[in-house]
Each structure stands twice: as structure tokens, then as C-alpha cells.
């Protein structure tokens, strides 16, 4: 039954390839009226023609109820590629799935013409075709979602990299301006970055500036403290600066303590302290204006 029906659908496709393609394109364009800026008609036509060219041979040999068989592989790969590129271009998931779903209308019209005398056969064929197209449509959505997740993950990683710069303020003095909330993953990255930079620049002072950290709770304090201890083991001293008044208040209320770590209100104070420790004197040569 399945083999038979698949060959019938394939037969219809082969016979009406051109008109089906035209109808299909019209359907897609109607669905994408607002999205003409993202994909040109020529591109859409080429994509659709390629898809149909892969679809027809797969229909002829493949099972309609199971698209995981090797006969469908090349079609699925093509669909995956198309969905992925659409995910990158900024299409919505339903717009992506429409590519497949809009094939229903032209196909069903042809089926109705073909089986106009036999209602039962028509129902069977329609059911088979629907099952297949639904599966393919869902597959595109799945790939679409996966690509979006990959994009989000990549952006998160990029953001992590961007958000923890280590800058050299002076020979032997590093500064790490932290911006944004500190969670375990980020503190770990910050810790590794600081320690690595201490080694590569041979700096004996590191200033961790937390002006941009929205709140400091016991956990964040613990992370910072661990970093300071690790740096000390390596032979460098850390200073924590940029503690805003409300943060200082909250820390005392929470009972957060930095132990004997040097803390300063501003980065300038911390730098002055660092200069003092490594024996640098700054002299003002021009009078104040």
C-alpha cells in the first residue's frame, strides 16, 4: 500500500513538475510578502526547484511514514541547509516551515484531479502526502531551532570573552574592570584570565574593579576571594576597587567579608596604593588650571 501510494505521488510530481513548482512558488511568495527583503524571488525559485528535484526521486523509492531512511538523506540535508541559512537571515520558524507546508496546496489540487472518480483512493493519498509533508515541515522547524540555539550559544561565548578584558595600567600593574553580574562560569573565566595575564605580563599587582557589578552577595565575594588567594599563591597581590556606597552597605548587612584583602573605593585609589607598593612616585609638574 505504502509503496504503491508513494509511487503514485511520485508519478504525479514527475508529470506535473513544472505547474506544481509554479503554484508552489506563488504560495510561498504569498506567504512571504513581508519578507521580500530577505530573499529574492530568483533565489526562492532556484531553492524550490532544487528541493523539488531532490524530492521527486526520494518519493519514488522512499517510505512516506519513515523519513529517517537513507533514501531521504539528501533531501533532509538540503532542507537542513536551507533552514539553517533562514535562521541566520532572521526568518521566523513558521516562515521557514511554510516552505514545506505550502507544497500541500498544489499537490492536493493535482491529487484531486487525478483521483476525482475514486474518493477512497483520494483520501488515502491525501493522508499519506500530509503525513510526509508534516514530517518534513517539523524537521525544518527542528533544524531551525537548533541553529538558533547555536547562534545564541556562540553569542554568549563571545559576550563572555568581551566582558572580561585584562588591561595593563603600568609596568607590573594590571586592571580588570568587571561589568555585569558575576556567576560561577564567569568568575571562573575572570579568574583564569587574571592569573594567566599575571604570568604573561609578570605583574605583581592586579586591581579588580567591580564598579560595573550590580550586586555583591556572599557567593560573588567568595569567587573574588578565591581569585585573590590564587593570585597570592602565584606571588601577586590583588586589590579590589570600585565598591560603591550602596554595595558597601549591602555587604556589611549581609556579613560579607573580604578578609585581609585590600579594598578601595575607586580605581584611582587602588592605583595609588599599587604605585606605593611597587615604589612608584607620581609628581605633578604642571600647576592646576
Amino acid at each position, binding site marked *: 500500500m505504502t509503496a504503491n501510494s508513494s509511487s503514485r505521488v511520485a508519478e504525479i510530481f514527475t508529470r506535473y513538475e513544472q505547474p506544481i513548482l509554479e503554484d508552489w512558488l506563488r504560495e510561498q511568495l504569498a506567504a512571504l510578502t513581508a519578507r521580500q527583503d530577505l530573499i529574492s524571488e530568483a533565489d526562492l525559485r532556484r531553492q524550490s526547484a532544487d528541493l523539488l528535484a531532490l524530492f521527486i526521486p526520494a518519493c519514488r523509492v522512499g517510505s512516506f511514514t519513515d523519513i529517517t531512511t537513507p533514501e531521504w538523506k539528501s533531501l533532509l540535508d538540503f532542507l537542513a541547509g536551507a533552514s539553517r541559512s533562514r535562521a541566520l537571515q532572521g526568518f521566523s520558524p513558521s516562515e521557514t516551515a511554510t516552505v514545506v507546508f505550502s507544497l500541500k496546496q498544489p499537490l492536493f489540487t493535482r491529487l484531486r484531479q487525478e483521483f476525482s472518480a475514486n474518493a477512497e483512493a483520494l483520501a488515502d493519498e491525501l493522508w499519506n502526502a500530509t503525513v510526509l509533508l508534516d514530517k518534513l515541515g517539523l524537521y525544518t522547524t527542528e533544524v531551525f531551532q537548533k541553529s538558533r540555539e547555536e547562534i545564541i550559544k556562540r553569542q554568549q561565548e563571545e559576550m563572555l570573552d568581551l566582558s572580561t578584558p585584562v588591561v595593563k595600567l603600568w609596568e607590573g600593574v594590571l586592571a580588570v574592570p568587571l561589568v555585569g553580574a558575576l556567576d560561577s562560569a564567569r568568575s571562573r573565566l575572570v579568574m583564569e584570565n587574571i592569573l594567566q595575564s599575571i604570568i604573561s605580563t609578570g605583574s*605583581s599587582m592586579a586591581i579588580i574593579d567591580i564598579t560595573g557589578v550590580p550586586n555583591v552577595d556572599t557567593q560573588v565575594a567568595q569567587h573574588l576571594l578565591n581569585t585573590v*588567594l*590564587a593570585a597570592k*599563591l602565584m*606571588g601577586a597581590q590583588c586589590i579590589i576597587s570600585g565598591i560603591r556606597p550602596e554595595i558597601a552597605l549591602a555587604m556589611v548587612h549581609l556579613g560579607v567579608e573580604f578578609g585581609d584583602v585590600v579594598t578601595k573605593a575607586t580605581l584611582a585609589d587602588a592605583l595609588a596604593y599599587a604605585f606605593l607598593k611597587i615604589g612608584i612616585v607620581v609628581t605633578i609638574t604642571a600647576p592646576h588650571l
Partner: protein
Amino acid sequence: MEQIPIHKVGEFLLVSVQVDMHDRQALILQNDLTTQVVKTRAKGVLIDISTVDIVDSFIGRMLGNMASITRVLGANVVVVGMQPAVAITIVELGLSLTNIHTALNVDKGMALLKTLVNKSTNEGRHEPFEK
């Protein structure tokens, strides 16, 4: 099992750990170091661990022990060149090691050792903790 060498440099001892230490090796080093400090009457010990990549809780504790023992014998200890991964491990293991002095490299370690020794000589007694 190779022995970890202890060099005498002026009035200091230089221990260069160039392998990932086994537990037994660490114990042997601890014994050797104690003997050498007494024998050479060294005023300071510099332990260079810049090529050590892996440290477990035992080795971490041994470092602390070596520092304490040496101090009891009247010498200062500076551990130099600890790798970031090692430092993170020690902190995460909860080994505070707050009683040991550290420096970034042998050069800075030597300078620190000299100031420490000067200080304890000037004070006429040994002052291990720098507050």
C-alpha cells in the same frame, strides 16, 4: 625515581622542582631539605615550582609543611612561579597556605627573600609572619 636537587646559592638554598612530584618524592625532598637547612645554616629557601602542572591535596600540604619546618629551623621560605592551574587547584581544595610567602619568579623571589632575611636579622629574631 629521580631526586629533586637542592642547590646552595650564597646564603640561600634553591630547590627547583622540575617534575610532577610523587608522594614519596615529596617526602624525600622534605627530609633532604630539612637536613640541608641545618647543615648549610641557610637563611632562606626558594622553592621554584614553575614547571609543576599538577598538584594534589597531599603535595599541596607538603608545600605548607616544608615551609613550616624550614621556618622552625630559622629560615624563610618563598615559593615562586606557581602556575595558574595549580593556584586554582590549591584554592579550590581549601588549602589556605596563607603562611607561605610567594613571588612571581626566581628573580623577584630572591629579592623578597633578601628583604625578609634583612628584616629578621634587624629585629634580632626570626619573624615568619608578615602581617
